[in-house]
């Protein structure tokens, strides 16, 4: 079922209504801002739980309720 498709005529995948943004333009934003966003998610979701970058428990305690309600394992 997952064979790679032969280059078929683009009959059903019609011309897109909106021109795609080239991946080269997205890449730098995705790399730098994407990683920054993932770091933010790490601090909300996991810091001072399984792993700690900052010592103590203040980060964990501060976002404690959000962590539980957002579905992250807390303690």
């Amino acid at each position, binding site marked *: *079922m*997952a064979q*790679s*498709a032969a280059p*078929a*005529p*683009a*009959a*059903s*995948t*019609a*011309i*897109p*209504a*909106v*021109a*795609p*943004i*080239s*991946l080269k*333009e*997205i890449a730098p*934003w*995705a790399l730098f*801002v*994407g990683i920054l*966003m*993932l770091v*933010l*998610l790490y*601090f*909300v*979701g*996991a810091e001072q*739980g*399984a*792993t700690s970058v900052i010592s*103590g*428990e*203040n980060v964990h*305690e*501060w*976002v*404690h*309720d*959000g*962590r*539980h*309600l*957002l*579905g*992250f*394992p*807390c*303690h």
Partner: protein
Amino acid sequence: MNSISVRALLVRGMLAGLAAGVLALVVAYLLGEPHVDSAIAFEEAHSPHDHGGGEDPVSRTMQSTAGLATGILVYGVALGGIASLVFCVALGRIGRFGPRATAALVSLGALVAVYLVPFLKYPANPPSVGDPDTIGKRTALYFLMIALSVLLAVAAVILGKRLAPRLGNWNATVAAGAAFVVAVGLAYAFLPSVNELPDDFPAGLLWKFRLSALAMQLLLWTGFGLVFGHFAERLLAPRAGAPGEKARTAAPAS
């Protein structure tokens, strides 16, 4: 599209994520917090679980207000930013969808891949559910499940695109969706289960806590899809908007 689009979409994605985070925060405060408090009351009554000795560094009042807001708003902004980058890639590549419809589909996909699929295997737990000694294992499994789910969702979209010329758009989408469900089912079957529920923990409380966690995510992603879709439509197709939308063209949010 010039490169200003990516930056402009990213900024709008983070703003839409903030707005969606506010919606989720309201639900979390009104629906979720009472259950967190009940669960903490259970914890203190049944198994005096020490948070590290002495007094807690952050009071319950701060945890349930400013702390909760910090967590949820940062989560909203971060996922909004990432979702807007995914939108940049998806726009014009997943079929004949305009900016608004693409935003709605990206939000739906994010809800399913980032939250719903991991939630069905490793659901959100209130305080006192979960053994503190296994936090490392549970954290690793949860993030592994998210990563796997996102990768499988991306693979399903690529598969659907490749099948579309042969099967037609509808059948290709159904086939890719079925492949995703089968792959997720296999992941569920092979990843270890976690069951660390205290014996006498109230079932009703657990159910209501999880429902409120789910409601937050539903509102977060619905809000994000609608708000970001509106911004993206105005940014990318300013002339195609409805007649009532011409009032302002720049700076839609402040």
